[in-house]
């Protein structure tokens, strides 16, 4: 027995570990956790600070400057005028409420559409069907945003397919306007709501739903008491996408919104036509404040405790 093992070891000797520069580097890193952390994080941190935080702070600061009405140059003159204009102007009230309404409607529609689709994908479909559906949900994201919005413009137009379908019933289509904007935005952001809810449902073990049913809960009670509370953080994650993306949108409303304006349009016209960057920055603060308010409310309800 023993001699047998020895001869086998001689035949295929394991080579000794060689001392290379890479190996010495690894040894250094494995014994210096702090250096390891710095190497890992320095690049993304630099990017985050420069691109994200500096740009955001610059935006905030610009809102407190003003534009020389004669030359059109930005003057570094500290003033609250822009903020006051935005807070008191009735135009800004109307547009803010309209934008908020559109964002809420889009979010509610998307959640209502996403829940059954995501539930089917995660809990009912076969693994094969599941893969096909994930690709189907992601597919619209491969196409250009503009192309999709223009496609909706043609669907919603007076001679479009929607009107053609509705004609036999004697129903007038929505035409261009707020309804069209809500429909188009709901379509655009739906994948961003389906995917987190799908991922959330995937994490709910089937055995929990079985256990609920086993204990006497009918399907609806199981969904209400077990599934819904467990996927609430995922629903909120999805709603943050659809809500924030809708708040900031200005292209869709330009193309299918008729004469309606949203906050994004005000930012766009103030930067472009009116050449008033400080006022645009002040307008841009509105969605930021709304989103902070939304996140704060969500946090207060405790919905993210199970995250």
């Amino acid at each position, binding site marked *: 027995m023993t001699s047998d093992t020895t001869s086998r070891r001689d035949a295929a000797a394991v080579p000794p570990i060689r001392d290379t520069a890479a190996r010495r580097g690894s040894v250094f890193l494995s014994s210096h956790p702090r250096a390891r952390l710095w190497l890992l994080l320095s690049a993304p941190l630099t990017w985050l600070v420069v691109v994200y935080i500096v740009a955001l702070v610059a935006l905030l600061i610009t809102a407190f400057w003003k534009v020389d009405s004669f030359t059109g140059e930005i003057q570094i003159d500290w003033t609250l005028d822009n903020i006051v204009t935005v807070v008191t102007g009735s135009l800004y009230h109307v547009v803010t409420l309209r934008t908020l309404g559109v964002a809420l409607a889009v979010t509610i529609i998307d959640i209502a559409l996403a829940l059954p689709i995501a539930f089917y994908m995660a809990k009912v479909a076969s693994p094969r069907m599941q893969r096909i559906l994930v690709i189907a949900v992601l597919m619209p994201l491969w196409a250009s945003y503009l192309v999709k919005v223009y496609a909706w413009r043609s669907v919603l137009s007076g001679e479009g397919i929607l009107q053609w379908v509705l004609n036999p019933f004697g129903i007038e289509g929505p035409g261009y306007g707020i309804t069209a904007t809500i429909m188009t935005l709901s379509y655009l952001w739906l994948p961003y709501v389906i995917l987190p809810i799908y991922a959330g449902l995937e994490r709910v*073990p089937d*055995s929990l739903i*079985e*256990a609920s*049913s086993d*204990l*006497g*809960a009918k399907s609806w009670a199981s969904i209400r*008491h077990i599934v819904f509370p467990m996927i609430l953080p995922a629903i909120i994650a999805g709603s943050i996408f659809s809500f924030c993306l809708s708040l900031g949108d200005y292209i869709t409303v330009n193309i299918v919104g008729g004469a309606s304006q949203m906050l994004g349009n005000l930012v766009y016209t103030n930067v472009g036509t009116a050449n008033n960057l400080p006022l645009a920055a002040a307008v841009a603060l509105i969605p930021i404040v709304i989103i902070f308010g939304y996140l704060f409310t969500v946090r207060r309800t405790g919905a993210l405790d199970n995250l």
Partner: protein
Amino acid sequence: MTTAPAIRLTALTKSFGSVHAVDGVNLDVAPGEFFSMLGPSGSGKTTVLRLIAGFEKPTSGSIELFGDDVTAKAPFDRDVNTVFQDYALFPHMSVLENVAYGLRVRGMAKKERTERAAAALETVRLGGLGDRKPSQLSGGQRQRVALARATVVEPKVLLLDEPLGALDLKLREQMQVELKEIQRALGITFIFVTHDQEEALTLSDRIAVFSEGRIVQLGTPREIYERPTNSFVADFVGTSNVFTGPVAQQVVGKSGDFSIRPERMSVKVGAAKGANSAAGNVVETIYIGGNTRVVVDLDAGQRVNVMVSNESLGDADKLRGAAVTVSWSASDVVTLAG
């Protein structure tokens, strides 16, 4: 109707595609019985349990519960409850809310269901832990919460799907005793699925041994262990020395298939040829606490295991390589059906 079995399975079959997970199972379980379904993984025992619970619909056959045909009923319409292998506790609810859940969905008032749930937690000795979340409990505690949650709704039959599989040995033995006590106290039928033959032998009134979707033997633990009817049961339940074909002819002296338990055999140094014995050489002696397992290569050409108490063995190390005689009494030879 008074003698209706707690569970009656008639020609129960479940196919997944071309695979027959359960293949024509007929079974009666008496009320109040502790019944185990024992088998290796993939033998269909868990599928039978899921069919009884209603999580799967049978391909054909029927399931009766105290004389009621429940084959087409949904899980929430069946008077059976399940203790899941992974416990399946609701992570967003406290322990007390978990236990009260079955009462809550039945519409019981909050005060009463809280009292009952607290009492159920008391019976599984988790009285003070009602406010905790399941994630704050140990494996053994979660196990007991699952048990309390399933029994608080007073089912007629409790289904247990390898409930002790995730626990360590000491805790498992302790829980076995508790399970048996709870079953006696509640007087309800337990259907217990396990792949652990020792667990099944310890706990059960009767055992069904499963293999490839069928019941290969049904009987009391003693019958299953001492009188296995076929080589699968002899091999799966405990260790056995199974003799087949020409070797059986040579060793046992009859044609057919036979099984002899290791602890029913003894080893003696030297050749003492006679009936009910066979000569061989010791390959290995393995110390396992109270006993020593002696592995012998019989001259007839088969390796057998013999379980010997340490006192009767003497110096085990000297035994290795020695020529020995393995002997047994004729009554310990079990004839197998095949």
